[in-house]
C-alpha cells in the first residue's frame, strides 16, 4: 500500500501555481482564491476516495 499523499496545503499550492502559470493573485484576492481551492480539494477528495474500475472511460464523447 503506498503512503497517503501529504496533507493538501492550499495556500502554498496557490502561491506556487500562480507563479508557474503566470497568474497574478493580489494580496486582497488571495484569501478567496485559497478558500476556493480548498473547497475544490474537498470536492475532489470525495471523488478520489471513491473506487472506480480502471477500464471505465471518461464521459465526454468525441465522434471522429
Amino acid at each position: 500500500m503506498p503512503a497517503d499523499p501529504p496533507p493538501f496545503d492550499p495556500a502554498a499550492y496557490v502561491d506556487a501555481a500562480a507563479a508557474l502559470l503566470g497568474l497574478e493573485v493580489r494580496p486582497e484576492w488571495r484569501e478567496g482564491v485559497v478558500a476556493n481551492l480548498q473547497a475544490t480539494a474537498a470536492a475532489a477528495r470525495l471523488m478520489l476516495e471513491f473506487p472506480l474500475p480502471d477500464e471505465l472511460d471518461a464521459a465526454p464523447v468525441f465522434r471522429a
Partner: protein
Amino acid sequence: MTDPATATATEIAAAVCAGRLTARESVDAALARIAAIGPRVNAFTDVTAERARRNADRLDAALARGEPAGPLAGVPFAVKNLIDVAGLPTRAGSLINRENPPAEQDATLVRRLEAAGAILVGALNMGEYAYDFTGENVHDGNSHNPHALGHMTGGSSGGSGAAVAAGLVPIALGSDTNGSIRVPSALCGLFGLKPTYGRLSRAGSFPFVGSLDHLGPMARGVSDLALSYDAMQGEDPDDPVQAPRPVEPVAQDLDLGTDDLRIAVAGGHFARHGDADCFAAVARVARALGAERRVEFPEAARARAAAYVISATEGASLHLERLRARPQDFDPATRDRLLAGAMIPAAWVTRAQRFRRWYREQVLALFESVDVILAPATPCRAPREGQATFVLDGATLPVRANLGVFTQPISFVGLPVAAVPVWLDDGLPLGVQVIAPPWREDLALRVARRLEREGVAKAPVAAL
C-alpha cells in the same frame, strides 16, 4: 385576452393568428412595459426596439398577404446576454467581453424562434460568465426579484427570471450548466425547461463549461415552454456537441395526463441540505400526483462534487488568457473561483469525468423502475441580495455555492428537467424539479402541465 403586455405566449400567438392583435401592437405593449417597469427589476441590458418594431411590421405585412402564422406569431422574447444577437457585443455578463465586436449574426435558437414568428426585444442581465447562482452582477447591477425587490432572482439567468416574472416578456432564454435556468425559475416563481444535454443547439452562445452547458426556455406557462422548445429543436451543423436526435415535438402531448407514469420522490441527498419549505413544496407536488415511492440517486453528493470540479476547471481554462491579462476587470465573485480553477490538477478533472460515466450508468438503471423523479430545485426561498451565508441542515454555508445543491447532481448527467413553481403561502415561491430520463422532455412537461391545470403550480406576473 388580458393585457397583451402580460399575456402568455400561447394567448398572444392565438390572438395574432386570429387577427385580434397585430404583432406590432404586441411588441409595442412589451416595449412600453419594459420601459416603464424594466428598470425596477434591472432585467434588460439591451433593448432592441427598432429591430423588434421592424420585424413586427414585416410579420404583420406577411399575415396581411395571407401567409401562414407561425406557432409563436407576434410573441416578444428576450435572451440572456451570452446568446448572440446580431449587432450587439455578447457580453456574457462581463466587462471584458462587451469590448468585443458586435455579433455578426443571431444565435441558432434566436433564429429558430423568429422563424416561428417570435420577435426578439432584447438581451438580459446575468451573473458574470454564467458562474453564478445569485443573479448578482457587479458590472450591470443585480437583477431584482420581481416578487420581492430586495431579494435575489437566482442565477445565473437572473435577468431572464426577472423579465418573465415581471411580465416584461412571456418567454426568455437562459443557460443552465449547474442550475442556472432551474434556480432563477424557482426563486422567481416560473416554469423553466432544462432540456437533455445535447438536445438544443448551443451555436452562437458564449460557453461556460462545454461538458455541461445547456440552453432552454423560461416562461409563465407550460404551453409556452413547449411551444418555444418545439420551435428550437432540430439538428444544427454549427454545434458539434449536439446529439443526433430527430425533432420530437411535445406540445401536442401535454394533456395526455400522468396516470401511466411511475413517479417517485428523490430521497437521500435530496431530502437533506434544505429547509422545511423546500421539502414541503416537493411534498405538495408529490401528494397531487399520488407519488409515494422514494428513490435515491446513488452518490449524488459525489456527483455534485464532480460537477463542481469540472466547472471550475473548464471555466478557468476558457478564461485563462483573460485572467492573466485583466484579472482586475472580473467580478470579484467570479475571479476568485476562476483563479483557483486554473490551478486544479488534471488528475482531479479526469477522475470527475470518469465518475460521470459511472454515475450515468447508475442513474439510467434507476429509470428502469420509475419514469419521473421529483426533487427540490433550491434549498430555500430567494435569499436577500448580498446575503452571503444561510443555514441548511444545521450548517452555515455560503449562499453562492449552495443554491445549486439540488440542481447540480441532475444536470451533471444531462437529464431533462421541468422546474415548476409552488407557492406554499403568501410569501415567496419555491421550485420543484420534475426530472425525466434522457430525451423524455415530454414526460417532465406532461407532469408540469398536470400540476399547472390543478393549480398546484402557477407563475403569476408579479404585482409591480
